[in-house]
């Protein structure tokens, strides 16, 4: 059976057991629920277009690349480049994620992507962020749960970081402030969804303050050009 015929024929509910690194699962998929028991390989749910993927295990790199809609739930940790250039949909990661998460996420009309990380994120989180939400909860640590260069080149969207201290060494294009009740209201739906999915008491999440990172409009990411 060709890949194309298989895709057409494919049932709406799929369960993959004992997954061991198979790549490109669910590329461009819509109208499906794919449950994966095991560890899928790179580029899981690339260009995802409305399907739901539930992984009972860790995932590798480039999950949700250029995702347009749908939902990915990861009962474990994610590798590098999670949600690159994603435009819509939601990704929930129970534990940690690697470097370069949510680079160049963007939003358009009703599409407003969101990534929620339960643990910590590696360096380069939300670089070139153009829209959408990234929420890092740091449930497993006391220090700010992000690495270096968070939000470099950010020009839209917001990054929420659950921490008592602001992250260190933020680039000049980013403003960092303590989240207000109004800010938290905006993300409450995602946090309660995270708490529901992973069965974590929401009070154990909301018991710490959050910092919110926004683009610094006074110091935008741009080069000064001179017509030649």
């Amino acid at each position, binding site marked *: 059976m060709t890949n194309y015929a298989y895709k057409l024929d494919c049932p709406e509910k799929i369960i993959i057991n004992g997954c061991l690194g198979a790549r490109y699962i669910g590329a461009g998929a819509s109208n499906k629920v794919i449950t994966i028991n095991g560890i899928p390989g790179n580029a899981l749910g690339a260009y995802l277009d409305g399907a739901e993927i539930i992984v009972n295990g860790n995932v590798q790199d480039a999950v949700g690349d250029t995702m347009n809609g749908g939902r990915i739930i990861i009962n474990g940790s994610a590798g590098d480049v999670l949600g690159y250039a994603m435009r819509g949909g939601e990704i929930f990661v129970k534990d940690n994620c690697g470097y370069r998460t949510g680079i160049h996420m963007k939003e*358009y009309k009703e599409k407003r992507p969101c990534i929620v990380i339960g643990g910590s994120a590696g360096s380069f989180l939300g670089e070139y962020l*153009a829209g959408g939400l990234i929420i890092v909860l740091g449930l497993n640590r006391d220090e700010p749960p992000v690495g270096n260069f968070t939000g470099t080149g950010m020009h839209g969207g917001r990054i929420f970081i659950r921490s008592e201290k602001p992250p260190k060494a933020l680039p000049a294009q980013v403003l960092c402030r303590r989240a207000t009740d109004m800010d938290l209201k905006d993300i409450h739906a995602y946090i309660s969804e995270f708490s529901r999915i992973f069965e974590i008491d929401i009070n154990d999440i909301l018991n710490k303050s959050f910092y919110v990172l926004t683009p610094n409009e006074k110091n935008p990411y741009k080069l000064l050009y001179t017509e030649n």
Partner: protein
Amino acid sequence: MPYVYNEYEIIRSPACNSCRVCEKQCSYGAHVYRDGKMRSYDDKCVNCHRCVELCPKRALKIVKSNMSLRENANWSEANIREIFKQAETGGVLLSSMGCPVKYPVYFDRLLLNASQVTNPSIDPLREPMETVVYLGSRPKAIERDGRGNLINNLKPQLKLNIPIVFSAMSYGSISYNAHAALAQAAQELGIMYNTGEGGLHDDFYKYGKNTIVQVASGRFGVHKDYLENSAAIEIKIGQGAKPGIGGHLPGSKIIGEISKTRMIPEGSAAISPAPHHDIYSIEDLRQLVLSLKEATSYTKPIIVKVAAVHNISAVASGIARSGADIIAIDGFRGGTGAAPTRIRDNVGIPVELALASVDKRLRDEGIRDNISIIVSGSIRGSADVVKAIALGADAVSIGTAALIALGCHVCRRCHTGKCNWGIATQVPELVSRLNPDRGKTRLVNLLKAWEHEIKEMMGGMGINSIEALRGNRLMLRGVGLNLKELDILGVKHAGE
């Protein structure tokens, strides 16, 4: 800013009857009607010839000013003017179109062969000449099933009636009408046009069979319908005019339909990071190639576009092993809607040398059939097409030449967005100056003429199919090239 005399002067002859056409036509404000007569503002003139061509009295002429700084073979006037500009503003110099600097043009140092006496030339008026090419990966061997029937193991191919495609130019860098003309011409000619990284307007979905869609680092407008309404998908890694740097379309230009096709909100800046941050290696590239194939069910060839840079043959070798079907190599003279001047004029290498070395490397490694090669970066006429194919290209890509057919006068002011010819602009009254149907006809005329010329040149060499010309370097001889250059190009010197 120190007063610097303008580069061009507008000469208005007494035939001018102050009809004000020039004033209406000039988006730069070089002509103004005041106190009962037309006045010229030479400092505003970009020398695009719009007024000259539309003046009903033929009363206008634009000349290069002979006012000059003291001559200096080292400090050119351009050097000095640029320093003035930067000292005043502190800005990065921004310019557009291809590199105008005088570097060697190797196409102009290569001459084509023709048959005389011993092997007859072929008359294309009489004999059939094949200009159709198929781009894509070729199977390693013929496979048969148990009963001896051929198994179709051919991967998806891109069919071109002539070995020319239109280069990637986004809707945003050029106008809707320019895109419409390119799309219609591609359809009529049986070739391809390329969306660039600007998304695809849904009006153009109907040209899908003649559309190459681009996936670049910003992934603007990339979604399911976009990928599906295409004949091939191009991953853009780099561009000849600006290798190694990203792009930035300011929020002020993201309005209306541009916002819609790029799928970002109005007023939001469109930043394309310099690298794809999910591609740091050939393995990562392979992953993007294959994920695109997965998402489109292995129905379309994948192109990887790179700029011609120093180690291009090693890069190409990696790309040929990445699962991609076609590599597009853009030389340093390739055009752009906007690029920092220093990068445009100083980064990259000539496409002729890049092509020759890539073709040789892939043949030496036995992987030339894994991949087809498209080259671009200043293909100025059909002779350049023939020379590129003889150096090893499967097809070429033309951007500037196509825009010139649409009316571009290469004034190099694309980045201002005020193109008087309705090409590199989004201003509705300027865009409406370009009639897409007329534009299509001119593009078709141009390429039909090139096709005929290509056939004549091939016929002269005694070759009746473009496939037999590809990589046929015996058909080339160098003039005025040194041994190293001849060695890289893999051609003999004229007279040998």
